[in-house]
């Protein structure tokens, strides 16, 4: 029964005297967070390794299923891939390889996985980046308007549209956009073979290809940011400092811009980073629909093998980047919100 009195929750709330003074507290905070993120990355790698070893049968018999192979060749292939060794030693080999930037070799293309990921990385960054920037901008703007005119027609209509878009599967929205635009925009890939050489025509060509996938991602994600911004601003609406600002005689949009929005922005900014995992998941399906040559399409094409080393590599890269984004969010929150710093 004394458990309630001496629970560790209470112990940890007794603040270290150093932490009160700032300096070392911040350093400690940053170091614990980085440590936590590193632990998560290690967990991602461990999970990635053992997840893809759950497969019944070994990858070698899968690779040679169509070709006649002598037992000797089989043994050689096993040795080459390292699957003849015990699981734990395989794991340490894999870990050592990762540290040297070796993600293994693709079963289907017989190329280093890292090269394949490297080729596919930038298209995904372009797609996800442009969609996120637009979604954040549009979502925040609409969310602020909706909350400020709370319960107005604009608010109701916007919330309704956002909630509906939120329940739409992304790949379906992509398919509908393809049918509706009916050939105005290219339906596949990132480059057309007949585009003129030179920087400007090439850029325009990529943009032309980018519009539909970007729009698809945007339509679903802006809703999330809008709803978060709206509820966050609604929480500030009755705050005393806003009454004070109004009493000072400030114009309505000044009260909104200078006083209400900065405070409401805090939780939203970090959520943008936190949602990154979902954006990545969305990118996978959208890239599959539009054959956008990014990591998502690599996942899609590798699924039909299944090309396990590639899937494993992409999994580690995507999950790792999500962990890093969350670390950024936590650090950013500390910088942005002075209240967190002092307590």
């Amino acid at each position, binding site marked *: 029964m004394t458990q309630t009195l001496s629970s560790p929750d209470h112990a940890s709330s007794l603040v270290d005297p150093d932490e009160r003074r700032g300096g070392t507290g911040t350093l400690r905070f940053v170091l614990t967070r980085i440590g936590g993120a590193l632990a998560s990355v290690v967990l991602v790698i461990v999970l990635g390794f053992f997840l893809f070893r759950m497969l019944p049968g070994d990858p070698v018999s899968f690779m040679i299923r169509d070709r006649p192979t002598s037992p000797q060749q089989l043994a050689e292939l096993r040795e080459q891939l390292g699957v003849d060794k015990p699981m734990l030693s395989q794991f340490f080999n894999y870990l050592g390889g990762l540290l040297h930037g070796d993600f293994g070799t693709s079963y289907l293309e017989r190329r280093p996985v890292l090269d394949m990921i490297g080729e596919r990385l930038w298209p995904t960054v372009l797609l996800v980046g442009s969609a996120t920037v637009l979604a954040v901008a549009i979502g925040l703007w609409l969310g602020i308007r909706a909350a400020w005119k709370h319960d107005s027609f604009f608010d109701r209509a916007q919330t309704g549209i956002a909630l509906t878009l939120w329940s739409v599967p992304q790949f379906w929205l992509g398919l*509908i956009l393809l049918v509706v635009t009916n050939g105005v925009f290219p339906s596949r890939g990132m480059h057309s073979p007949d585009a003129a050489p030179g920087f400007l025509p090439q850029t325009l060509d990529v943009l032309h290809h980018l519009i539909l996938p970007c729009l698809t991602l945007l339509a679903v994600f802006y809703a999330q940011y809008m709803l978060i911004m709206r509820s966050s601003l609604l929480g500030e609406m009755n705050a005393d400092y806003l009454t004070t600002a109004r009493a000072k005689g400030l114009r309505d949009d000044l009260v909104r811009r200078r006083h209400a929005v900065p405070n409401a922005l805090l939780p939203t900014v970090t959520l943008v980073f936190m949602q990154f*995992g979902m954006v990545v998941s969305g990118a996978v*399906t959208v890239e599959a*629909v539009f054959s956008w040559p990014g990591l998502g399409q690599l996942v899609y094409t590798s699924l039909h093998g299944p090309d396990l080393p590639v899937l494993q590599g992409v999994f580690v890269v995507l999950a790792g980047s999500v962990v890093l984004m969350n670390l950024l969010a936590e650090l950013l929150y500390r910088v942005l919100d002075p209240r967190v710093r002092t307590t």
Partner: protein
Amino acid sequence: MTTTENAAESPRAIAWRRRRASIAKTWHEFASQKPGLIGLICLGVTVLAALLMPVLSDESGLDVTKATGGPLNPPSAQYWLGTDIDGRSVLLMTLWGTRVSLLVGFSATLLSVLIGTLIGITAAHFGGWVSAILLRFTDFFLVLPSLVLAIALSAVMRQGIGTIIVAIGVTAWPSTARLVRAQTLTIESRPYIERAKALGGGHLHIVGKHVLPGVMPLVLANTTLVVGNSIIADATLSFLGVGDPNAVSWGAMLETALNNGAVSKGAWWNLLPPGIAIVLVVLFFTLVGRGLETVLNPRLKGQRS
């Protein structure tokens, strides 16, 4: 109720009477909100229709070899929503697809809510290092791109509906776990828990008799919202081609439409029905879930925004 009646009742009967009264009160509050009620009615009709499909229609129309229509015929008097590439009725396939979607949606949700509730209650009830490890674990899964993990899982397991259910179930639990943990902490800080402990109640008694009934309402509201997500995840996974290749599901219908030329030929009647079906079912679940949440979540009570 008079006092004499109370005296005659056993403690168990009193507890049940209180529970019944609170369920009735919750139902009244829920029924007074129009969106939630409409969602519930529509959902009831959908579930009933899905269950009665074998009685209402002929399953042989789903067989590719017995298809009677031409490929990609537009809607006509015989095929109200046209035909797919194999000449099957899109209307029939969409209606039958409800069964797979609801089956996967409910089973995957059940699995994820079970895992989430178990981990959430354990983390909150035992505290200490158990809690620290479980929380770390939950946060890890919370940030992981769940679709990518689900794809990985379904790639290494046998293709089929069971695989999809497991893949969604084991990736969707973290938000439930967090919610349950928070609610358990609130409940365990109340005096009656301390009283139960002082009377010698063990872990099982406290969790089973006091924590679980207190957590259940929130879990119920959360479950309804999770079903919607699971249905979308199911459609996405089937669309990516990791589902059961023989099952008629909305995701698989859309995959066929993309890969067999329905999209490039502008055959909208192959795209709209399954997609709208997904949106509607998810919308029904969302309406019911939000309705339940406003009634059951003490934080939202009184502030309807």
